[in-house]
């Protein structure tokens, strides 16, 4: 009977006797007998750890997609970056892994200070003065940003650029079912939001754009800012934090809120979770900031100390009046991101950003030499991700590439819904979104180009 409970039979008997009961079952007398599970749950008996490990490894082996099987050229919000041993080791420390939300700050200074350092890093990357302790992922961060912005502008019309990751847009739309926000999707024209296409939608309370867009293209953020000023709207930018290693920060273009996906900072691909939602805003909006915020203070003896602050915003105090229901976040991923960014340092962040730009450009130049393979948006500069079109349907090409040991990217037909405003309908089935991080070598890219050359032959 494998488990982790320390009780001996004698101890159980003594505890039951201490309670004046005859059996442990009597503890459940308040539960109507007729409703109780008769004969136990229909689940297999427990198994000892070695057997369970073998069974979990079976799942791992059924996947044909580990790093030793597929060389990753996929991005789309989930990136294959270097995660060094030192980050894995520190991030795996039981004190960080098995703590809970720092309700007792006296014994949680470790996590609180790490979050304070994380907040500082996210603030600097986003170019805004305050960042929270993280949210679930990029999609949650952009959803919370929309809620904040609508509350601030008191205008429920949300211009949501199709340059924002398609899944994130789906999540925003799902949660708008509850809030009733009017989501207006702004199509892309040549990789840039085409606001003229929605000019009849009424003035927005918030404009959300991706920078870079999920296709890797760059928005005209000065134009977005002036449109926001004209409408009295808040400007929300979903920015890739690694790209910010080379790009001007969204905050410097006047964004009110900057959100992003922080998985690139030390969190494994992990089939999509847990990841790390980044959220930064102006001081004007700090009292609407969702999730936890750590601030510096002093203890009774005047020593520097950290504590979660502005708690009056939170759901445990404001209950139905709170503008966010977020309770826990992704603290462990935030701590890991602080460690990874500590490892990278000023030069390292710049270098992985530059190398990712160069690798992706080298990749694009290689594949577009292949007959029939074209950039989705010819002549448009991209960072982080880039989309190409192939003569065959994208899913077939990706299948063939997998046989050669490459995850060749994501088919836009899988990533987007039909009629999506980010891609021409006639190109959608043939488009592949690709990315190469600092981890991809010249050899790997050259081999990939060879494999793609074969894969696009009919």
């Amino acid at each position, binding site marked *: 009977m494998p488990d982790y409970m320390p009780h001996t039979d004698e101890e159980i008997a003594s505890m039951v006797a201490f309670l004046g009961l005859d059996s442990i079952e009597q503890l459940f007398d308040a539960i109507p007998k007729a409703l109780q599970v008769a004969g136990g749950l229909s689940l297999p008996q427990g198994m000892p750890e070695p057997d369970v490990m073998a069974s979990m490894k079976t799942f791992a082996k059924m996947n044909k997609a580990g790093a030793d099987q597929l060389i990753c050229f996929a991005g789309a919000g989930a990136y294959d970056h270097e995660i060094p041993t030192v980050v894995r080791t520190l991030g795996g420390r039981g004190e960080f892994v098995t703590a809970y939300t720092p309700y007792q700050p006296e014994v949680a200074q470790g996590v609180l200070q790490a979050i*304070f350092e994380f907040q500082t890093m996210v603030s600097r990357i986003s170019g805004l003065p305050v960042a929270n302790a993280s949210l679930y992922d990029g999609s949650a961060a952009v959803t919370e940003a929309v809620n904040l912005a609508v509350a601030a502008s008191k205008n429920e019309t949300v211009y949501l650029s199709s340059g924002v990751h398609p899944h994130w847009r*789906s*999540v925003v739309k799902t949660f708008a079912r509850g809030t009733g926000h009017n989501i207006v999707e702004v199509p892309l024209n040549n990789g840039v939001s085409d606001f003229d296409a929605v000019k009849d939608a009424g003035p927005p309370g918030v404009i959300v754009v991706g920078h870079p867009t999920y296709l890797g293209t760059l928005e005209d953020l000065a134009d977005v800012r002036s449109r926001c000023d004209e409408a009295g709207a808040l400007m929300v930018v979903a920015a890739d934090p690694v790209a910010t290693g080379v790009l001007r*920060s969204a905050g410097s273009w006047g964004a009110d809120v900057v959100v992003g996906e922080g998985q690139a900072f030390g969190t494994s691909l992990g089939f999509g979770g847990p990841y790390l939602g980044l959220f930064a805003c102006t001081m004007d909006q700090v009292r609407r900031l969702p999730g936890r915020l750590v601030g*510096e203070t002093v*203890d009774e003896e005047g020593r520097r100390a950290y504590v979660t602050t502005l708690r009056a915003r939170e759901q445990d105090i404001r209950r139905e009046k709170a503008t966010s229901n977020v309770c826990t976040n992704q603290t462990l991923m935030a701590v890991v991101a602080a460690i990874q960014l500590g490892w990278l340092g000023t030069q390292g962040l710049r270098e992985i950003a530059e190398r990712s730009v160069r690798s992706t450009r080298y990749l694009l130049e290689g594949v577009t030499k292949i007959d029939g393979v074209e950039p989705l948006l010819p002549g448009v500069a991209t960072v982080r991700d880039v989309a190409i079109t192939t003569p065959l349907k994208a899913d077939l090409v990706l299948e063939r590439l997998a046989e050669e040991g490459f995850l060749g990217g994501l088919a836009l037909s899988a990533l987007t819904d039909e009629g999506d405003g980010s891609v021409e309908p006639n190109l959608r089935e043939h488009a592949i979104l690709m990315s190469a991080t600092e981890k991809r070598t010249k050899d790997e890219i050259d081999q990939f180009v060879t494999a793609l050359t074969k894969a696009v032959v009919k």
Partner: protein
Amino acid sequence: MSEGMIEETHKSAAGGRASSAPLLGDDREPTLFEFSVPGRTAYQLRTNEIPAIDITELLPVEHLRSEPVELADVSERDLVAHFTRLSHRQFAVDLGAYPLGSCTMKYNPKICDEVAGLPGLADVHPGTPAALVQGWLALMLETEHVLCEVTGMAAATLQPAAGAAGELTGLLLMGAYHEARGEKRTRVIIPDSAHGTNPASVTLGGFEVTTLPTDERGLVDLEALKAALDGDVAGIMLTNPNTLGLFEEDIKEIAEAVHEVGGLLYYDGANLNAILGVIRPGDMGFDIVHMNLHKTFATPHGGGGPGAGPVAVSERLVPFLPGPKPVQHDDGTFGWMSPEHSIGRVHAWHGNTLVLARALTYLKIHGGDGLRRVAERAVLNANWLRVRLAEHYPAAYDKTCMHEVVVSAGAMKRKTGVKGLDVAKRLLEEGFHSPTVYFPLIVEEALMFEPTETESLQTLEALADALDRIALEAESDPDALHAAPRTTPVRRVDEARAARMLIPTQDARDEALGLST
């Protein structure tokens, strides 16, 4: 009170009492930025031999930053020292008992960490075509089946990333269900003892909150409920056992009354640990259930996330579940499908999948029989503590509790001026994490203890002895309690100052000190 104790238990040391918790010494740790020396580096990247073209030739200059993002520049050695020392300033389950009520801070088996790190699981890109991730899809589907069996439901979504995300997902499902029947229902009923996330989620789900009083038994007031029910009610959110640690005995009548007016029952799985293998939410009449895998199924809390909050539903809500979700085709292979009337995605990808892998590992180790033992021992531990503490800390509702017990320091406060918070802080000096304080809101000076099933009798005894000492000290030396904790890295912190002079970053600190450049 301890006469009932068997003698030999006093011979063993209490494994859950960390003698140096959370650490010794009180030197402050500089921030990482304060170790920074410009030019110092730690990172090492792969040799990639891609031509180092100047970035200004690749991207429009107006988009490029002129200066790099300034981060801390430290050596790997300093990085390790800093974060290791930070870890020494942090209490955690690995260090000792963490009886924080409502949070189910049970031991987190280490094997689950190893599973979550298996290369065939951890290295997989979430956008990989289904044919190449059959193992992940099978793992997710098995997790869904086990969770449905545990809760007595028909199907589940694994997407919600945490309990609160699960709540909101469940409420959107509730809304979609009524809407599909052509009904616009506006209200959701919540007991006054509910977690704060419940009312916040209801508001974000597009409903109004109707608060229900707790009766003198500590349970839902059935008459008040019946009076509140009408055709505007979309449903009720219940935690059962409730946040007082008591089982809602009238659940069958409650379910019938809510269903009678066409409403749905939402089960907040925060306290699921108490009833594993004993009774299932589905059998109680619930339609929607969220689970906190980080509580009930021991995936580590990570200092406040990541969690995972799958939502299981009864048959009639299956068509509305978020998609895409894993499915097994007739030929035995696995793929994705979206339910017919899906509310859409609630996560960027497929949920906190590595957390799911940990939870499934835990579930397989325990099996159906082990889960029942979990509930029994969690409830046994809580009741032992309830009875053992009764002399100085009377339970708010003196009857058999489930997995947690809410006691009141109200009498102590009136007599000695020592508050529940003082007791909580003083307990830190005894080598134990504090209980949850001041929740639920309906109990005066509430202290909520949830020992969990993984703490030993010796640990419970040491905890109770410590609390007894504190109670006596409240009479003899109340100032000592007001001053606690005195052994921790920092003492009580000035929360008002943190809010008044907001310093959320190193830059704000430097500016406040006049150090900014």
